[in-house]
């Protein structure tokens, strides 16, 4: 058996076991509502055929894309600034540390009050969820830059621009990527939660709508699995950034 297969086989076996137990329990209990794995598959195909599945997926992804994009646009520059300028850190860190532990879900009432039931509210929630990890990771990334590199840059007498472009940003990049991984993870958690409450599209909406419209638990579970798979893919995409040549140094030795 080659090593690639040896890596893939055990997790596949676990998944197969879970599906097997699920199937067996549903059949044994003769549950009238809870679906078998096969019913979930047929339900998913049904949604895929009439196109609503893609609409829900793109709606959720679009909200995450915009909210997370805004969070990067704000969080990374803010984190760099707070990391570099001690005064900025002292001024803003306390309030961010206070806002950070508030679950993004807690903002839902305010989001609906301010933005109504539309696309803006979940985008706002995603922004609130993912901006803090980005700020915190970027700031700590700047704080942990090895002093010898800053001294070397000073020694070579480079301009502030070169210092930032060639030293500070590449030194912090691995931390920014960590912030992005955490941020995209919570963004995906939050979009589903937000859509369950407020909207007419998205995977979160699909879950609530399937339950409310005739106890379609096959579609509930289908949506859950799709959410899990897409979450895994989003994490995989951000992990690809760790393969960038300019950040490899952080992960070797």
């Amino acid at each position, binding site marked *: 058996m080659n090593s690639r297969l040896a890596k893939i086989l055990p997790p596949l076996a676990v998944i197969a076991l879970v599906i097997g137990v699920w199937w067996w329990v549903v059949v044994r209990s003769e549950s009238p509502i809870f679906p078998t794995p096969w019913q979930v598959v047929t339900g998913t195909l049904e949604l895929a055929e009439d196109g609503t599945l893609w609409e829900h997926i793109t709606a959720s992804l679009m909200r995450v894309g915009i909210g997370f994009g805004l969070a990067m646009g704000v969080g990374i520059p803010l984190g760099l600034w707070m990391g570099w300028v001690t005064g900025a850190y002292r001024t803003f860190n306390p309030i961010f540390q206070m806002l950070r532990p508030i679950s993004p879900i807690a903002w839902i009432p305010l989001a609906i009050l301010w933005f109504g039931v539309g696309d803006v509210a979940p985008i706002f929630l995603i922004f609130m969820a993912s901006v803090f990890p980005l700020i915190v990771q970027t700031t700590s990334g700047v704080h942990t830059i090895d002093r*010898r590199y800053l001294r*070397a840059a000073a*020694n*070579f*007498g*480079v301009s502030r621009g070169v210092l930032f472009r*060639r030293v500070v940003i*590449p*030194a912090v*990049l691995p931390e920014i990527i960590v912030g992005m991984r955490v941020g995209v993870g919570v963004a995906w958690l939050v979009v589903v939660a937000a859509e369950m409450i407020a909207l007419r599209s998205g995977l979160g909406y699909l879950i609530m709508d399937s339950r409310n419209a005739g106890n379609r638990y096959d579609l509930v579970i289908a949506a859950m699995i799709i959410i899990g798979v897409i979450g895994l893919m989003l994490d995989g995409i951000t992990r690809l950034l760790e393969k960038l040549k300019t950040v490899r140094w952080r992960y070797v030795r």
Partner: protein
Amino acid sequence: MYADSSDKQPKIAVKDLNKAFKAAKGQRLPVIDGLDFEVGEGQFVAIVGPSGCGKSTLMNILAGFEKPDSGAVLIDGQPHPGPSPQGIVISQYGSVFPWLTVQQNLMFGLSEKHGSDKAALADHYAAMVGLKGFENAYPHELSGGMLKRVELARAFIVKPEILYLDEPFSALDALMNLRMRNELLRILTEEKHTVLLITHDVDEALYMADHILVLSPRPTRIQARFELNMPHPRRLISPEMDQLREAILKELGLEMPA
């Protein structure tokens, strides 16, 4: 060499340097206690001291990263301008940027005044230190000895007037340490620089330096000065060297058995 430097202005003049650290309960811990010495243009001066005597603090002050409490460091008779490419530091920890390739590292300190083809200049210096073929490698792909070469090349490429070597090769294995000494001396015959080496390794100083200053334990001051009028390459084993080594080690508190 010493004679003609005495009528010229010294490259580096250290005058009554003092530095103390803040210790617990508001006490002050004196580290450098009235240090005085001069380094002439083009000289290779080694400062030898026991560990913990304040060598690194001294180097930080000389390179301009820290300010002394009193006294002065004059470069060409002028007050120290702070860190600048005029004097490049090479320390045992190394500061090759891990996110840049060898070539990008060498080009780091180059500015407009170094001409348009910085990459060609970088490759020339890479070849000079024996890194031909590794221009596009990242530092994590190199060995410790090769990293040191990158650091040397990155320093030489900006043509610093002074090289500050802070135990430059002490993180290398013994064999590579010896190799890098020869490498450094070879480059120095091609490109003349004033060199200030701080080390705890007496043999390293004996092998390379024109003058050796011995520091006392903390708070440190200059305890003894030695002159070596010997051509390179030097033999570390000779009656003359043995005598010098013994004298220096004696100053450092190590008596050789008779």
